[in-house]
């Protein structure tokens, strides 16, 4: 999670009012996807469309990380031939996409969530179990 000025101010000044957890959506199997259902606690805080857009983008990014394509097939075969020692040397495709996701979450926090007194936690810090949204007490953070 990146700390920006607005986020730092928020964390220092505001108390945590509540935490909302967006659970995983397993309807497509074991792929990492999160539920897009809009939680009731956020109804007064953020626009439903915005929220769903964020979750949907995250889901697409995770699908891209786990995608089984020709590139991952070639990488897998190459790794097997080298007894998987390449995993020790280079960054895996998944890790590259995780960095993208971290950047996206930071960007969303800066632009959309922090001004509304919310904070998205990168799911990787919660073991890809949940997206944790921290709701801070409303202290005139409105735009």
């Amino acid at each position, binding site marked *: 999670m990146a700390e920006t000025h607005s986020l730092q101010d928020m964390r220092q000044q505001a108390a945590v009012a509540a935490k909302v*957890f967006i659970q995983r959506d397993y309807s497509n199997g074991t792929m990492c996807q999160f539920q897009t259902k809009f939680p009731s606690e956020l109804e007064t805080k953020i626009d439903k469309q915005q929220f769903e857009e964020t979750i949907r983008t995250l889901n697409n990014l995770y699908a891209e990380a786990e995608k089984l394509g020709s590139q991952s097939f070639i*990488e897998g075969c190459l790794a097997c031939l080298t*007894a998987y020692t390449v995993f020790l040397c280079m960054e895996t495709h998944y890790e590259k996409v995780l960095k993208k996701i971290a950047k996206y979450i930071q960007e969303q926090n800066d632009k959309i969530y922090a001004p509304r007194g919310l904070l998205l936690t990168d799911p990787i810090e919660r073991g890809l179990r949940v997206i944790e949204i921290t709701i801070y007490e409303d202290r005139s953070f409105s735009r």
Partner: protein
Amino acid sequence: MKSREYQQIDPKALPTPTQSPPSHQHQAVGDDGRTPRRKWEVFPGKNRFFCDGRIMMARQSGVFPLTLGLILVTSGLFFIFDCPFLVKHLTSCIPAIGGVLFVFVLITLLQTSFTDPGILPRATPEEAADIERQIDDTGNASYRPPPRTKEVLINQQVIKLKYCFTCKMFRPPRTSHCSLCDNCVERFDHHCPWVGNCVGKRNYRFFYTFIVSLSFLTAFIFGCVTTHLALRAKGGKGLMFALQESPGSAVELAICFFSVWSILGLSGFHTYLVASNLTTNEDIKGSWSGKSGEAVTNPYSHKNIFINCCSVLCVPMPPSLIDRRGFLPADEPAQTSGVDLELPNPNTKSDINVCVQGPKGLLESAALTPLLATSCPQGKPQTALPCPENTSALNSDPSLELSQRCGGTHHNSKTYGSTSPPLPTKGRLHKHKRASSHTPRPTFDDHVSPSSHDGNHRSTDRGHRGAKFATLQ
């Protein structure tokens, strides 16, 4: 009896993390007050960490030293005794091929043993409280609630997600809690004592490569030693003369002969699992075999062998979720260990179960069933288990969890104990029986003890392979 008390998590009473004195602002520090602590130092599962968190294994290394030792000894004898003769009489490719296979086997073994198998970190206290609240909203909170399950629809199949009492979360599909390591592991295959680690989503491809290359290595060494002895015994000199000239070959021959069948069988079995996108755990439980009478198919299979293989072996390597080497922030709790209600006694049972992996693996595993029956009254599958640990670990299949660890333990004991095999897939049973034919059978009334298992380990050189095969069923 159920000795686990249900205790609702009160968010206000969540344990306050005091890894460090309040004066340290940024990171939790160690005892000396100077070095920041890493997350692996406070990891709640039963794992061992080396190289400052870079390497991890199960706390019980099982017979991993034996596995390593046997591979090193056999290969060493091969290079010392057989290769010089074969290079002189045949070709110098032989040590080259042997060397490549040996290095492959060693690297994949170490990777299987030292990699995080896909452990799911335990839920944070707030998450756990949130889930508890959701559950209690739907049920009654006046007394201990029934085992918690959640149903999801995956590919038109209803899958039950079970709540893990230890990790305080609903387990994702195909995830299982390993009681030996005390962790939920994603795409849990089995706990393998031979590699001293669980086999799960992240290290299955290493494990599969290990057993396939080990089959090749064992078969190759067996063939080379046979050729070597045959060449030496040529000209009427006889086999005894050849063995006297090259005593190391006799040892190798014995080891390879006893192990090649079971390792080949194991590789074949896992190739079948990979091609059908199954885990050993699911295969043993018969999750998709429709034994309950319903028409169930594996919802995770892509219905294409090639795609199934790719999705198991070639999918991008998932990251480790436990962040072993991350630094512990001062204001965060380690994990949900404060409200952990696990009782210590199941651990002794786990130790006993782990030691089952002797050369007579199948038999010992079969013998475990009475042991299981004594410790947990309901030893049969599909019944709720009163053992506190297994309630969280296995939901209702304690004996099957055993079999996860001990391979074909329960599965094979079912085969032997009952007149008709429970599973419809004859191919697997055939493999099980093949492995069993190479190991002597104890009686089912034997209560296995760790010491007897160790004795079994040493009695047959590479017979552990048979056990491995059996156990990994």
